[in-house]
């Protein structure tokens, strides 16, 4: 199937179209961030400005359309600039870790034997360390900061892709057309790129789409445990973590601080949803067996 046809189908499918529109919207917000929410300090654009010093969240009001969160951080500013952070974490982490995973999985399955054994045991080693433990030790060593969070996410986030890729390659390795190329004496590089990768990449791609969305949530979990982005950094995960102690409201109303949860929550949800829709649509389009069925 040609790429332009894939894209045409993506636009035709109602759900994936919705996904695409949402992503386009977020992309636009990310690009226009300096216009929508002009930073006060050009050196530290990701630092959310404070509306004051009070700890208690304050509801939306003039100048602060989304209200202020715990510590008087401007929710609107955090959401707008956090869009950039979401894309940055998503693209960089998913990109690099997928690359590592694909390489490890392909090499492992293609060559088999001792190489496979060694690579898979290394994978096991990395899988044995609970992710949150690894992330905490990493940020302690490297220091707090978004880049260090991303390093931790990459270093301990490639194993799933590697395993998936390996099983895919193993399946296809013995197919006739691959064996034929081997018999014809084609070199390994050519076989891997031409035949194997081209035929195995889609499940990995679909998985990558899903992970794009879930990265923001992982970042929120890290913020919850105190190893996420630095305090006050524009990051959706942190914005929702600010709501932690206020979710249940107070005194007169359980919904007193709704804006601290609903606003960042909706953004994370829409972001995640759109990538998921896109991933699903991709699978439906690319899986030829399914098409026959429909």
């Amino acid at each position, binding site marked *: 199937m040609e790429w332009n046809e894939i894209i045409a189908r993506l636009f035709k499918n109602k759900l994936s179209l919705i996904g695409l529109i949402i992503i386009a919207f977020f992309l636009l917000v990310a690009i226009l961030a300096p216009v929508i929410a002009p930073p006060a300090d050009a050196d530290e654009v990701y630092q959310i400005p*404070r509306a*004051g*010093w*009070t*700890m*208690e969240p304050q509801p939306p009001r003039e100048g602060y359309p989304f209200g202020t969160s*715990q*510590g008087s951080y401007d929710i609107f500013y955090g959401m707008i600039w956090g869009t950039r952070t979401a894309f940055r974490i998503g693209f960089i982490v998913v990109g690099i870790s997928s690359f590592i995973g694909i390489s490890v999985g392909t090499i492992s399955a293609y060559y088999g034997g001792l190489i496979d054994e060694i690579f898979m045991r290394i994978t096991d080693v990395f899988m044995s360390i609970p992710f949150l433990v690894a992330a905490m030790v990493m*940020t*302690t060593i490297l*220091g*707090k900061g978004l880049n260090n969070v991303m390093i931790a996410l990459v270093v301990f986030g490639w194993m799933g892709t590697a395993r998936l890729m390996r099983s895919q390659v193993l399946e296809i390795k013995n197919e006739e057309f691959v064996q034929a190329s081997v018999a014809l004496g084609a070199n390994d590089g050519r076989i891997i790129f031409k035949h194997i990768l081209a035929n195995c990449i889609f499940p990995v791609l679909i998985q990558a789409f899903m992970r794009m969305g879930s990265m923001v949530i992982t970042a929120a979990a890290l913020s919850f445990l*105190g190893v996420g982005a*630095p*305090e*006050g950094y524009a990051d959706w995960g942190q914005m929702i973590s600010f709501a*932690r*102690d*206020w*979710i*249940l*409201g*107070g*005194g*007169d*109303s*359980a*919904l007193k601080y709704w804006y601290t949860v609903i606003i960042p929550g909706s953004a994370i949800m829409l972001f995640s949803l759109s990538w998921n829709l896109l991933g699903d649509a991709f699978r439906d389009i690319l899986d030829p067996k399914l098409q026959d069925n429909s």
Partner: protein
Amino acid sequence: MNKRVVVLMLSLVLVFAAFSVAGAQVKNPDTFTFVTLGDQSTLDPHFAYDTGSSEVIYQTYESLIQYDGESVNDFLPLLSTKVPSAENGLISEDGTTYTFPIRQGVEFSNGNPLTPEDVKYSIIRGMINDRSGGPIWMLYEPLFGMSGLSDLTQKVVGVKDPKTLTAEQSAKVYAELDKKITIDGNNVTFHLAAPYPPFLNILAKGASWSSILDKEWSIAQGAWGGSPETIAEFHDPLKEDDPLYDKMMGTGPYILTEWVNGEHVIFRRNDNYWGEPAPFKTAVIKNIDEWSTRKLMLLRGDADMVFVPRQYKSQIRGEEGVTITDGYPELQNMNMVFNWDINTKGNDYIGSGELDGNGIPANFFYDLDVRKAFSYAFNYQAYIEQVRMGEAIQLRGPIVSPLLGYDADSEVYSLNLEKAEEHFKKAFGGELWEKGFSMTLVYNSGNDGRKVAADMLKSYIEQINPKFNIDVRGVQWSTYLDASVKGTLPASFGGWLADFPDPHNFVQPFLHSDGYYAGKRGQAYQDWAEETGLNDMIAKGIATQDKAKREAIYKEIQQISIDQAIDLWVDQATGSNVRRSWVTGWYPNSMRPGVDFYIMDKVAE
């Protein structure tokens, strides 16, 4: 199903906008549950130096005397039948011997009787144990005028590390310890090296190091056996090798049932208690770090008392069945320590490390004008009102209210950007104003109060001159500790929780050259404090017995610390307590480590 559940949940949330609160009826009348955060470090009274541990020790162990109600200066007898004073003759005229008549008929919860020998054993065991970083310096300072066992071994046998003492040397050192506490019939007498006005505070209940152990039981557990020759073996143990780490045997109103670190501590009533029996059959300290969970437990009545960080108090104010007491002073302060002598080696918090606009020099804070300018660039009022929610008072030097030397009318700094500018212009002969500076203020992440303080300084100082640049950076606790030990932080946050309610306990760590915070200011400060006579004043303060004279000395020290802007003195928090309204008998005492199950009861409203 998923959909239905979500819909159900959302509608429930909407419908029940308010909580249903357990009625006026008392829930679990036989049990008292206190829910707080954190954990306990150890149960050994001589090892413990944190509030969590002391709180547990407080319920089971007893000391010779105790505080009278809310007072931190008046005492009542406890295991001693009298509180020594000059009037009753139990304190000698020169103020160096204190005699305690030991109460008879008291039993430990295992049935062993309390004897004067137990008292002596307890104190000496503590002084031998003297773990590094522990609280036992408070016994050495009055008894020997030293800061620990290693000072004593150095003096007596010339050995710096007590763990290397031979049996013979050990016996010599022990002989010195032995002389300090003597038994005469039913009386135990402490012999001080010099008068030490707060000595009774050091022995009062709440100070866990003054707890009285059962000698026989302790030896059976494997603690120091009473032999003069074995000091080396029992000095400075690892926590896990300490035989009393997880066991307790006291004379107090409660007995430890189970300790699960970080989850709960459960006590049962000591039915054999020598005083009035305790009101609750079971008492529980539960550790739950999540605020919302603690809040729900209080509202449901499953918790009788909870710890509430002040920023969340607005969430429960006005709830039915909940009582809040607040505004009483806590003997705790917070300040920002200026490093007068920054270690520039491998330091990435000070930019270029020079006065060139891109960094700060090592002696940046040695300049009085810089310190004063910083002190004027802090919004004390907003900090107290908005960050502390009004539950704090501004500091007037290291000494907190209501200790001797605290003067509520003394002069303090307030936010004044004009004055700050004036001082910045004078600093470094005007060079600083000309060139500007750049530095990083570091706080340990998770500490919101410190972050706001740093942000505040940044926002005001950067307003004064565009060439001034301050970064605020949060670092992990381990990094913070590392930088703090190495002296690379240009300014760090500090605070002190009183070990004993005496101004000496504040001026010593904050201002004396040997004090903890003087170490954070570097050699330059230590020399300065020596040269200006500040050290001598502190020494004079503790050696003086006359109250009026002491007060004058401490007032002067307070004044110097403000005039010289030695640190940025931020605030003293006031305390608060949140409990179910059915709890009666609670009162605050700032020297009590947390809860006291013995004084309370639960009565239907």
